[in-house]
């Protein structure tokens, strides 16, 4: 019983971190219809930026989010402008797959050039600190990461739902031609949206870097998880991806603690498969009228 509860606590905290990583992915994939295979690479890039700030300037990894976020935002805007924008055709969704994959490779290439491919890790003094709460261990970094992810997700949600910019982003994706007719600068909106997605990777990156050892190739593992979280949650539903991330975190953690780690991802995939077969739109995907 103790082990089970501990596993659930761990799962929820880990799920929070995945939610943070997936939020940008949800934004870009679900809302902008760009399958961003580079989101994992962005997270790793964010981790390296944090790492550099930490090692070179002794900056606290959580504090450095204030620097890395705007930086990654600019990176995102620049990349969208240079690489995604020219794909002005009907199936951006599919073509972006290629471009962002190349982007991921490119980021990996540059990172392995700039840093080594050895596994690194961001180790602030408190990295392994944990509280004992009625006999259960709650790790500080995970807890902060969880809190941070809730904050970032809430901000993201409000930006999308309540601001003019958010409406412009959604409008551009749902009907680019009419958005243009209403005076939305689709190019700028998409660039900013992509930038926003990349910016969330910055905060995710610093957390990821404290929790896991990483190298430039770490993005491969990340991306498949992020995609599954986003799809399980229901494309574009930020709330859905939070729930999906938590489901994934808890399922993996409980199965690996109680049964076997070998079957933990397996179980998760089976759950994913079942959910999608019963609800092809994911947990929270809305059913639309479509062309009927």
């Amino acid at each position, binding site marked *: 019983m103790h082990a089970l509860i501990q596993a659930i606590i761990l799962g929820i905290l880990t799920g929070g971190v995945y939610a943070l990583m997936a939020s940008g992915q949800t934004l870009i994939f679900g809302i902008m219809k760009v399958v961003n295979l580079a989101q994992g690479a962005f997270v790793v890039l964010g981790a390296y930026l944090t790492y550099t700030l930490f090692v070179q300037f002794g900056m606290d990894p959580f504090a450095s989010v204030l620097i890395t976020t705007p930086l990654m935002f600019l990176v995102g805007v620049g990349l969208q402008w240079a690489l995604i924008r020219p794909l002005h055709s009907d199936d951006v969704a599919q073509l972006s797959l290629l471009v962002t994959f190349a982007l991921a490779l490119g980021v990996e290439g540059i990172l392995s050039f700039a840093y080594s491919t050895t596994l690194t890790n961001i180790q602030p003094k408190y990295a392994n600190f944990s509280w004992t709460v009625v006999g259960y261990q709650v790790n500080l970094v995970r807890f902060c990461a969880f809190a941070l992810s809730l904050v970032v997700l809430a901000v993201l949600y409000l930006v999308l739902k309540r601001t003019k910019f958010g409406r412009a982003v959604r409008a551009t994706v749902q009907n680019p031609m009419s958005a243009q007719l209403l005076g939305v600068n689709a190019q700028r909106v998409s660039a900013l949206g992509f930038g926003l997605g990349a910016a969330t990777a910055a905060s995710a990156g610093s957390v990821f870097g404290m929790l896991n050892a990483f190298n430039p*190739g770490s993005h491969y593992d990340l991306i498949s998880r992020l995609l599954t979280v986003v799809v399980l949650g229901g494309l574009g539903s930020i709330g859905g991806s939070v729930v999906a991330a938590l489901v994934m975190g808890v399922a993996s953690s409980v199965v690996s603690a109680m049964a076997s780690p070998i079957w933990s991802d397996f179980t998760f995939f089976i759950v994913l498969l079942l959910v999608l077969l019963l609800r092809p739109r994911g947990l929270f995907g809305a059913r639309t009228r479509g062309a009927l």
Partner: protein
Amino acid sequence: AAASGTSSAANSAPLKIGISLSLTGDFSSSGKAAQRGYQLWAEVANKSGGILGRKVQLDIVDDASSPDQVVTNYTNLITQTKVDIVFGPFSSLLTVPASRVASRYGYSFIEPAGGGPSVFDQKLNNLFFVQPAESTRGGDVFANYILSLPAGQRPKTAAYAKLDDPFSAPIADNIQKRFEAAGIKTVYDQTYPSETADMTPIVAGIAAAKPDVVIGGTQEGDAFAQIKAMIQLKFNPKWLYEANGSNSPGDFPAAVSLANTAGVFGSIDWYADSTISGSAKFISDYIAKFGGDANQIDPTSAEAYSAGMLLQEVAAKTGKVDNATIIKTLHAGTWPTLVGNLSWDATGKPKGEYLLVQWINGKLQTVYPAKTAQASPIAPKPNWAG
């Protein structure tokens, strides 16, 4: 294009050695360590006049940790670049397909980093693994040590967390077999897949089982993750052995902080304080070429360097460096290298034993077998620093 490095010392063309390494992809950090070892050896060898008067010229290509590319690379090296000799890549997974290509073309295959059972199961006679024993026997020395303890001091219960890859889990399996035979009860036994980044659920499971000794059948990254999870979950076993990771004098303290290293066991064939002759010179040459300090040298570099040493020794003994001679010569006798004196059975499996090391006072020290020990092992393990 079969074995082309013909005998004559009169031949003054450079001796071309082809190597495919994982400079990118999953195995790249070790791949690059191997690269440094090879490069250092070539430089040292060339300073002393090369091999039989021929300059050593390395042709190192990247296989991106992919089996297709490794096949392509060795085929290219042998049939297109027409190298005289090939050395092995990093990891057994790539060594198997690579050694088949080499064997097909009659090349000897001295390889520093492919010691999994599948490598030797091929029963290739051109293959020589440059480490003291098969990788899967890396933990035997820890079992020897534990079982050498008086019965009352031995652990009663053990937990095993094993990474599912050909050279990690089997190390723990071999220890487990011996422990169970000696009556040490298994209270936790799990294998986890290689993409498991988060070790906390597993460690939570171990902590719940309260074992005396924890055996990690690990690679580097997951070993660090296991230990970090133990610190976070405040679980401290009496003995802790990690098959890989804890034996890295540089990366390990960097990953878990030096204070947390105390008392962790590992096994190794070469490390900075190794007493084997030639080691000191290797270290000083290495630092002169690549900088850094002795503790940052990956044993893989020493193993790769040793592969070169073997070639030099064969040349010195026979006056020839053709592949047939290498194969025939290495199969007979015992050969001194940085990782000890090596000899092989017919399948290329080495017949030696690893060293048991432990972190004591912030340093990695040999603690077993007694004849080479620098210090005596400490048990139980001191508590985590946090």
